[in-house]
């Protein structure tokens, strides 16, 4: 399981970090983000790339996105 910590990074960094992790190790990947914009962008990217995407609200504005 690859973990990407994209908290604090501005778009499009979280998407690029996710893309690189998926290209390197494949799914599953979990991505930590701390804003709604990267949550939407990572979800849209991974969904378009054909993965199953879900997320958990960790509270405090942080989300854990799981990509399978």
């Amino acid at each position, binding site marked *: 399981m690859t973990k990407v910590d994209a908290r604090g990074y501005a*778009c*499009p960094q979280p998407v690029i970090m996710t893309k690189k992790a998926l290209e390197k190790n494949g799914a599953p990947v979990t991505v930590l983000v701390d*804003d709604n914009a990267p949550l*939407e962008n990572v979800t849209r990217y991974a969904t378009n790339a054909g993965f199953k995407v879900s997320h958990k609200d960790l509270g405090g504005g942080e989300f854990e996105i799981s990509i399978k």
Partner: protein
Amino acid sequence: MAKLKPHLWVIVTGLVVGAAAVLLTALGNPGNMGFCIACFIRDIAGGVKMHTAPVVQYVRPEIIGIVLGAMAMALIGGEFKSKGGSAPVSRFVLGFFVMVGALMFLGCPLRMVIRLGGGDGNALFGLLGFAAGVWCGTIFLNKGFSFKRAYNMPKLEGYALPAINVVLFVLLVAGAGVLAFSEKGPGSMRAPVIAALVAGLVVGALAQKSRLCMAGGIRDAILLKDFHLLWGFIAIFAAVLVGNLILGKFKAGFDGQPVAFNTLVSGNFLWAFLGMFLVGVASVLLGGCPLRQLILAGSGSSDATVAVLGMTVGAAFCHNFGFASSGDGTTANGHIAVIVGIIVTLIIAFTNCQKADD
């Protein structure tokens, strides 16, 4: 239609921005300048006398509205967060040179689309340059460009730009004689304060919700084959084009376009291209176009606030040192400033590329 549904907000935002732009021009704003983030920040820099170019001094309520509208929407959506500390000085410098490039071309990426929708063929060279600049920026993103992460900041940091804009608005409506107001030129052409403020509030709120960004649209299309944000870009163009056709304001051509120079004389097309190339690269490094920087600054990002301050100081320099173009053409000082800007931006890009496992 189902295919367009995920893009609904960004398309609606684009249509509203385009319609508001046409309306504001009909109400008194300069031609093809219903909105222009670069020009309006420049006007504000003149309004507070950071420069004294007599034709471009006015504290534009549109900017005030955009920042406060974004703040309101971010607060409502629980997205307002005071964050910053990601390479502030580099962001200031990039903001500065975004303005140098935009005032070479005479417009931010948003006004570029609005000019295209009004039939201004000169904006085609700007579009080519902007797309090339964004493409160049994506190469650095692929090579690992990053300004590193931002951290939580004290609340006051995030409210700084909204607070500044509230002060500007108070000075605008009640500050008799404190601010400078152009008596001729583009700065004297103004939609009524309330119309401009309301248009700004609506656009700021919608753009915050939809993440509309001119640079992001082309960037995501190149980098991720994701055309989501590009829909907003297309919607603005469509709304402006239709609005201008309805009002009989559409005028195709290169010569005599409002607040624009003819790119077909004395090699000016090259400078329109290079100016927007600079804007494109620097916007990708900043994470968004000037409009997006305003929206992020209104949503609590002190990094974006620093970029906006850089743009404001850049605008003052552009007029104090003769970098800015005018309807008559470009300037030699401006050519030098744009070349320096491209070099500095590329240095910032190269030096912030991290190795894969960094």
